[in-house]
C-alpha cells in the first residue's frame, strides 16, 4: 500500500511540468478515477485548502491524500513520491549546468527563454487582477513596488495582509455577510 502511494505520486511528480495548477487534473485522474482513493467531493474541498495553505499545491495535495490513506507513513510516502523525480532531475542539471551555460547555443536558447518566462509570470497577474476591486489592485501594486524596488521581504507583507483580513472580518464581517 505504501509503495502504491509512493508510485502514484512519483508518476504525478514526473509529469507535473509547469507547476501547481497544471497538475490538478492529473492528480484528480490518479487518486479519484484510477485508484478510487478519495471521493470527488473531498478532493474539491481539499483543493481550496491546498491553495490557501502555504507551500506548493502538489506537495499539499500529496500530504492530504497520503495522510488520509495511511496516516504519517502515507503522507511521507506521498511527499517522497512527488519530490524524488524533481530532486533527481534538478540535481543532475545543477551538476552540469555551469559547464554548458556559456556554450553559445545554450546561451542563445536562454536569451529566447528569458522574455518568455516573464510573460508566463505576467499572464496570471492579468487573470487574477481582472474583476478585483480597485483598492485591492492598488494594494497589490504597492506590494509589488515594495518587494521589487525596496527589497522588502514578502513575509512581513503577507503577515500584514493576513492581519488586515482578520481585522476586517472582526469589524465589518457581519455586514458583508461573512
Amino acid at each position, binding site marked *: 500500500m505504501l509503495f502504491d502511494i509512493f508510485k502514484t505520486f512519483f508518476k504525478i511528480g514526473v509529469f507535473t511540468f509547469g507547476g501547481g495548477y497544471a497538475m490538478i487534473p492529473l492528480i484528480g485522474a490518479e487518486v479519484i478515477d484510477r485508484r478510487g482513493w478519495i471521493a470527488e467531493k473531498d478532493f474539491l474541498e481539499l483543493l481550496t485548502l491546498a491553495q490557501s495553505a*502555504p507551500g506548493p499545491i502538489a506537495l499539499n495535495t500529496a500530504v492530504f491524500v497520503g495522510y488520509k490513506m495511511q496516516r504519517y507513513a502515507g503522507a511521507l510516502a506521498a511527499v517522497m513520491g512527488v519530490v524524488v523525480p524533481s530532486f533527481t532531475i534538478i540535481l543532475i542539471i545543477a551538476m552540469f549546468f555551469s559547464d554548458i551555460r556559456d556554450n553559445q547555443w545554450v546561451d542563445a536558447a536562454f536569451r529566447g*527563454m528569458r522574455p518568455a518566462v516573464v510573460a508566463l509570470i505576467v499572464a496570471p497577474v492579468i487573470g487574477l487582477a481582472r474583476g478585483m476591486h480597485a483598492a485591492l489592485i492598488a494594494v497589490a501594486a504597492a506590494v509589488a513596488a515594495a518587494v*521589487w524596488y525596496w527589497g522588502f521581504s514578502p513575509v512581513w507583507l503577507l503577515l500584514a495582509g493576513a492581519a488586515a483580513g482578520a481585522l476586517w472580518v472582526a469589524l465589518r464581517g457581519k455586514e458583508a455577510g461573512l
Partner: protein
Amino acid sequence: MIATLCQLFASYLKIGFFGFGGGYAMLSLIQNEVVVQHAWLSEAQFADIVAVSQMTPGPIAINSATYVGYEVAGIVGSVVATLAVCLPALTIMMLITRFFMRLHGNRYVKGIVGGMQPVVIGMIGAAALLLIFPSSDDARSFIDAWSWILFALTLLGSLRKVNPILLILLSAAAGILIYGVF
C-alpha cells in the same frame, strides 16, 4: 560549512512556511532570500534557474531548493534545502487534515486568506519586475526588439491557455535561431 547548511535550512524553511499563493508568488520570496539576503545566486543565475524550472517537472520551490542547495553546499546542501522547503507543507497540511477540516468555511480563515490575496498578486508582480529590471546587466530579460516580440507572443499564448512547456520550448528554439544562427 555547518553554519552555511543551517542558514540554507532556515531560509528554505521560511520559504516553505510563507509560500502562499503557489509557484510564481514564491519566486519573489525565493529571490529575496537567495539573491538579496544571502547572495547565494547572482540575479542572472536566478533568472536561469527560473527558466530551467519551467521546463523540468516539479514545483519551482522544490526545484530552486535543490539547485541552490547544490550551488551552496553540494549534494548535502541540496538534500538539506529540499527537506527544509517540504517540512512546513508536510506539518501544516497534516494538521489541517487532522484537526482543522471544520475550519474550512470559518469566516476568519476566509478573511485571512482574502487579506493575503492582493499581497500574493503583488508578489507575482514583483517577481516579473525583478526579471524585467534587474540591477546587473547580465541578468536582463529584454535585450532587443526580439525579446519584446517573444514576450508578446508568449503572453498571448499563455492567456489563450497554450501549454507553458510548449511556449518555453518554442521560445528556446526561437532564441537559437535569432541569436545563434543569424
